[in-house]
């Protein structure tokens, strides 16, 4: 197939390109050019990154591979040959990519495009978030949590007099709304005033108002810096 394509485009097929294609088809699903090059280098010392990149570009052009541009700008390749169209769920923590295909979404896309008199030729859809494994890990170790950038502390662990910023509420929507109605929500400055003994309520101050929060609920309020 590559041969046909090359001929039609007037490119000469090379042994290297054929090798790259075969390797690519037998490789794992999602890979960047650099990762792929690292893999190939083990057997083909002389290969350089540029050759790999241009070969992959060629594959994409031939409709044998698909290019996916991630949030951070890097390109990822997967094979398209003999694969049905699908979209991706991408975990921001571990980089896990989950493929999915949903006819309803596809139909909706066509509908939206149709309304604009637009003809869809191709598309990519990537949903970014947290995969189930990472989410589970976060529950077990709330401290290391999902935070890549900074460590969050539950409100109850703050020292009396310490002030930070509410970053996240680890609870259902009900709890989140109740806390929000009392002015405890992400972005608010919060000062811990005291905690009653033996797991009693935690007293905090938000906007100069004191609130007493149950001990358990205080553990669900995640606070981060800047501290003061």
């Amino acid at each position, binding site marked *: 197939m590559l041969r046909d394509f090359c001929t039609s485009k007037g490119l000469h097929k090379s042994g290297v390109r054929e090798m790259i294609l075969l390797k690519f088809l037998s490789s794992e699903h999602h890979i960047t050019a650099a990762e792929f090059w690292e893999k190939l280098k083990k057997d083909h010392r002389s290969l350089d990154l540029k050759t790999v990149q241009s070969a992959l570009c060629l594959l994409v052009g031939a409709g044998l591979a698909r290019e996916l541009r991630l949030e951070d700008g890097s390109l990822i390749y997967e094979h398209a040959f003999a694969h049905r169209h699908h979209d991706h769920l991408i975990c921001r923590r571990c980089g896990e990519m989950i493929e999915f295909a949903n006819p309803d979404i596809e139909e909706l896309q066509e509908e939206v495009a149709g309304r604009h008199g637009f003809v869809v030729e191709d598309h990519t859809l990537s949903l970014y978030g947290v995969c189930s494994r990472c989410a589970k890990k976060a529950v077990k170790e709330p401290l290391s949590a999902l935070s890549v950038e900074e460590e969050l502390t539950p409100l109850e662990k703050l020292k009396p007099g310490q002030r930070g910023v509410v970053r996240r509420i680890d609870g259902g929507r009900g*709890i989140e*709304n*109740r*806390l*929000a*109605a*009392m*002015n*405890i*929500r992400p*972005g608010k400055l919060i000062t811990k*005033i*005291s*905690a*009653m*003994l*033996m*797991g*009693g*309520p935690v*007293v905090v101050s938000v*906007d*100069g*108002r*004191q*609130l*007493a*929060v*149950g*001990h*358990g*609920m205080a553990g669900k309020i995640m606070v981060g810096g800047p501290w003061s």
Partner: protein
Amino acid sequence: MKRIVLIGNPNVGKSVVFTRLTGVHAIASNYPGTTVEFMSGQMLFQGKRAQVIDAPGMYSIEPACKAEEVAATMLSKADLVINVVDATNLERNLNLTLQLVEKGLPTVIMLNMWDETAHRGIKIDVEKLAARLGCAVVPTVAVTGEGIKQAIDALEAAPERSLRSIGEGERWKAIGEIISEVQSLTHHRHTLRQRIEDVALNPVGGLFIAAIVLVASFAIIRAIGEGLIRHVFDPLFELARGPLESLSAAIAGYPFLHDVLIGRLVDGQIDFGHSFGLLTTGFYIEIAAVLPYIIGFYLVLGFLEDLGYLPRFAVLLDRTMHHMGLHGYAIVPHLLGLGCNVPGIMATRNLESRRERFIAITLISIGVPCASLQAMIIGLVGARGLIYVFTVYFIIFLSWLFTGLVLARLVKRGFSPEHIIEMPPIRWPNASAFMKKFWMRTMYFLKEALPVVLAGVLVVNLLYAAGAFEWVAAAASPVVERLWGLPREAVVSMAMGFLRKDIAMGMLSPLGLSTRQLIVATVALAMTFPCVATFVMIAKELGLRLLMLSTIIMLIVAITAGALSNLALSFLM
């Protein structure tokens, strides 16, 4: 008739505004949840009479407890809305305000407590805020009446608006924008007020303060009560002695009438405590024995309420109260119950679950003696020695504690100790608001209590004459005589306790009880059936089925406590 509803977060001053608008006095205090039931009054609006409703406070349109449900129902029936907003806490209050604005009803917003913004360093651009919200905004100071008239003028001119929906997620964003546009804060130093607020909630210092507050409260209530009795009410009744004794001589020929009006003479004289006539003991108990302590109690309670101290007390006790299946906040209904159980039971509406309300109501009716009863306990038992008063309180407290521990385990289902309560700012009570509330409560007591007491004395005298008590006494004698070690006449007092506790205590005094018997009788009286007014209130709040359950628990506890203390005291005394 148009219906105007006052809506706002808890503790922003809705009830004060309501009183200003309608002249109907609503109890207002400085803590969230003072209003649990709506109040209704009337005012002149657009030249016609309009109904004004003071709804309980709510943080959000979606109700989280029974009081908030009441508010939500009131809102759904509103033609016009007055949204009372705490100007010193605008950001949080706007959450509800935006939800209200979305409803599209003609609305005016009162920026209440406007006077406090200045010394907190808060500046609000009222015109800009009005423009952003699309309805009139008027700064007010409800306790002085400032701005109230302008707000009503604005409401009269308020147009019906088209619905404007802001999504849940976008609301906070919208609030953030509004706040940054209309409000500016100047930084201010830690004030004395804040320092007091912080210390009152310190796990150690707070308990110390709580202990001082409690001891001081009881000392002040006793001082006021006894002072009034000695210097005001006793001399007053001595003045009445002359005329009453001439009346007694005049009707001496009609023994029945004499018994009802004057009662039995002791050593040929009227004895206000023991004679038990309508005009003697009937008036004396309510006016000279109970009223002075009621005055003392409501002065102290009102002060603590308006100061904003009570919810802090609740936070300190939260952990302890959990053992009884209650939140710390349940202590507030308990404290109110120390005045009269009826408002105490009503105040349980701020508790979230029905189960918690059941426990709290049962505990209040068993373990919280009302001020009338306490006045008589201090008067009657105190005459034998202060140590015995403490004994009575100690037994009642133990019974309360034990019942709570058992109830919490029996009805465990559905308890969520997670709770957020707002602490009101500590502020010096406003004198006129404080006096108004005190006056209302005292008048309420006189209006409620006096007729019942007089009727009760009359009924007792009539039943005595008819010999009906013999029958009741025979029926109840196994418990009263065997278990409690009391003379069978005490049954009459217990039965009377159903009408009013204070008069029932008064009936114990002519029986010549030993100290031990007096203690047992007092304990039993305090814990058995609450008075009829409380009974009706419980039925209203819990329904008949739970009322029965509550009564059965009450009887078991009272019989056990009476029997055990009789047993224990017979070893000790």
